[in-house]
């Protein structure tokens, strides 16, 4: 961000160029960074406490300090503060990347060991120690998430249609919108407790089933579907609706035949992202569908294993012997889960990109 002066350029003078006078040369930042890291490494080596983290931390502090002093001396204190802010903000960005890389790398490195054929063909029935897999958990996740989607999408879609097409900014619409927002903030474990209590009231205490897990996930999924669908319906141009009304088409057919087809790509994207959000939920399934080591394809009764709960269970309840085998399975499950979520995200964004509506408001 250099100030652009429009004064005529002075040529042939022996004095330094006025445009760049009072500014640090461009390489200063890089040079100061290298020197700071080197000094930090040297100092810490003298104190015999040098490692990557401490060198980077001390080096960064030295860099900020030296640049601030240098810049204050040459460019003035306002410029120096500007530089400091720029470096700190950039630094925060780099700091935030560290955990992301660490999570992804850790999962891949630890998960590859058991990311094999056995993992995707075996359940945990009668498996102790090595071997075994998560096919029962993968099926459970697909079934429960599928049911949750079947419950959430109609409710979410219709509510969004009500909000956009029928509510006319009335009191009911405003309160639905407000409580949908509030609903996005329900802790997932509370949704799980709710589903558990409802089902144990109907079917007796201690009821565990896939469908109760699906109900818990729906509570988390509905608000996401409503919000994304509502946004998509809102960007459908009003001219389309009016053209349809002008032809004498009733409102409900206008919605079904004009509004929805126009925004369908965005709606599907929203639904896919909502699925990606709930497919990794652990806590609500822990209290509703629970965990089992055998395949259970019947969502109406008996515990049903799911991938997130499988990961939790394999890692946290590993027995004393052969612990490594259980941990390896947990990591492989985590890797599978991340791949599913990333895949769903990619699909959602691809649909949004491919069929992006070209019309504006």
């Amino acid at each position, binding site marked *: 961000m250099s100030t652009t002066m429009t004064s005529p350029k002075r040529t042939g003078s022996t004095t330094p160029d006025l445009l760049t006078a009072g500014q640090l040369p461009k390489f200063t930042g890089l040079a100061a960074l290298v020197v700071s890291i080197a000094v930090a490494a040297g100092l810490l080596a003298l104190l015999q406490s040098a490692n990557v983290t401490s060198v980077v931390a001390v080096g960064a502090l030295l860099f900020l300090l030296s640049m601030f002093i240098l810049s204050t001396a040459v460019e003035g204190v306002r*410029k120096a503060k*500007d530089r400091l802010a720029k470096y700190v*903000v950039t630094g925060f960005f780099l700091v935030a990347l560290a955990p992301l890389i660490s999570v992804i790398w850790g999962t891949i490195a630890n998960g590859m060991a058991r990311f094999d054929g056995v993992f995707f063909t075996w359940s945990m029935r009668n498996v102790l120690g090595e071997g075994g897999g998560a096919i029962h958990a993968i099926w459970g996740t697909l079934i429960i998430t599928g049911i949750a989607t079947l419950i959430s999408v109609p409710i979410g879609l219709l509510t969004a249609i009500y909000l956009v097409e029928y509510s006319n900014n009335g009191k009911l619409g405003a309160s639905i919108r407000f409580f949908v927002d*509030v609903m996005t903030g329900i802790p997932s474990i*509370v949704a799980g407790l709710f589903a558990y209590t409802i089902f144990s009231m109907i079917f007796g205490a201690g009821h565990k089933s896939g469908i109760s897990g699906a109900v818990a996930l729906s509570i988390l999924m509905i608000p996401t579907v409503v919000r994304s669908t509502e946004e998509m319906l809102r960007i459908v141009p009003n001219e389309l609706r009016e053209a349809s009304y002008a032809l004498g088409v009733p*409102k409900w057919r206008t919605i079904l035949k004009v509004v929805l087809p126009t925004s369908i790509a965005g709606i599907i994207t929203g639904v896919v992202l909502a699925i990606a959000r709930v497919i990794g939920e652990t806590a609500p399934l*822990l209290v509703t569908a629970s965990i089992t080591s055998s395949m259970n394809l019947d969502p109406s009764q008996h515990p049903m294993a799911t991938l997130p709960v499988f990961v939790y269970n394999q890692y946290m309840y590993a027995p004393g012997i052969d612990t490594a085998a259980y941990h390896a399975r947990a990591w492989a499950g985590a890797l599978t889960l991340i791949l599913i979520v990333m895949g769903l995200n990619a699909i959602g964004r691809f649909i949004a990109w491919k069929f992006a509506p070209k019309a504006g408001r």
Partner: protein
Amino acid sequence: MSATDIPEASTDPRSDSHSLERSAKRFGDTFFRGLSTGSGVLILLILAAVAAFLVGLAIPALLADPETFQFSRGQSFWKYVAPYAFGTMWSAILAMIMAVPVAVGIALYLTHYAPKRISSTFGYIIDLLAAVPSVVFGLWGIAVLAPAMRPLFLWLNEHFSWIPLFAGQVSGTGRTIFTASVVLAVMILPIITAISREVFLQTPKLHEEASLALGATRWEMIRQAVIPFGMPGIISACMLGLGRALGETMAVAMVLSGSGIISFKLLTSQNPNTIAANIAQSFPEAHDIGRNQLIATGLVLFIITLAVNMTARWIINRRKEFSGAN
């Protein structure tokens, strides 16, 4: 529906069937309208049912004789829930202290410093961070982060043990409330970043240019134009992040081996637990009144997060009315 083909003013001899079709049309409209209104109301009912069921099943724990309790027998329910409520708040506050400056910094970097291409790519990467399931974060926290944090803990304990926060015997595993808060901070970072970024992008260009034209440096421009405009947005983003941190279960349940104590010490193996993590850990072995106790603590959590979220939404909605942008 051929009704639309018939001109309204036609003098059709079959006027009976015409009116029938007209009423069929009306019926379709009424039906669809009712259906969509119904699902809107259904959502309100679900939320009411969540509250009602939780209250209904929590009441036995509030009324029962403490001597019959499964957890912390002989103490009143409020004594039982207090340490967990403390742990929930304490870990969330620690996470906020770490996450908020970084998140706002990233949002500023992405909107005002980074080149456009980097900005959109990394905006997407930050969004991906939000999509990583919490159980994976928990696994990462317990297996990767906790051992990596231990040298820092030892160093802090050695040099700063005069600060009460860092006092005490350092945990041998690194699984402390500090580590749990770092995991929470990483988890709420993308939420706060995403909302702050949107708000910063909405800053009126004219405000920014006016500030720059008066000779402000970029940082001064940010402080004069961007931050004041985006302040309500940042606050509500933080509240939403706080709501997420309060309700997060698995990451804490996996990283922390907590107990029902109130302790501000960050580095020891004696850690307060959170409400959500305690429910997840104790629920499998809970029975009868024990389940009511846990549901009652869930109700406390529900009320806390509800209050936080409603405040955040209220701030957002209030802002819409007087903001200059759209």
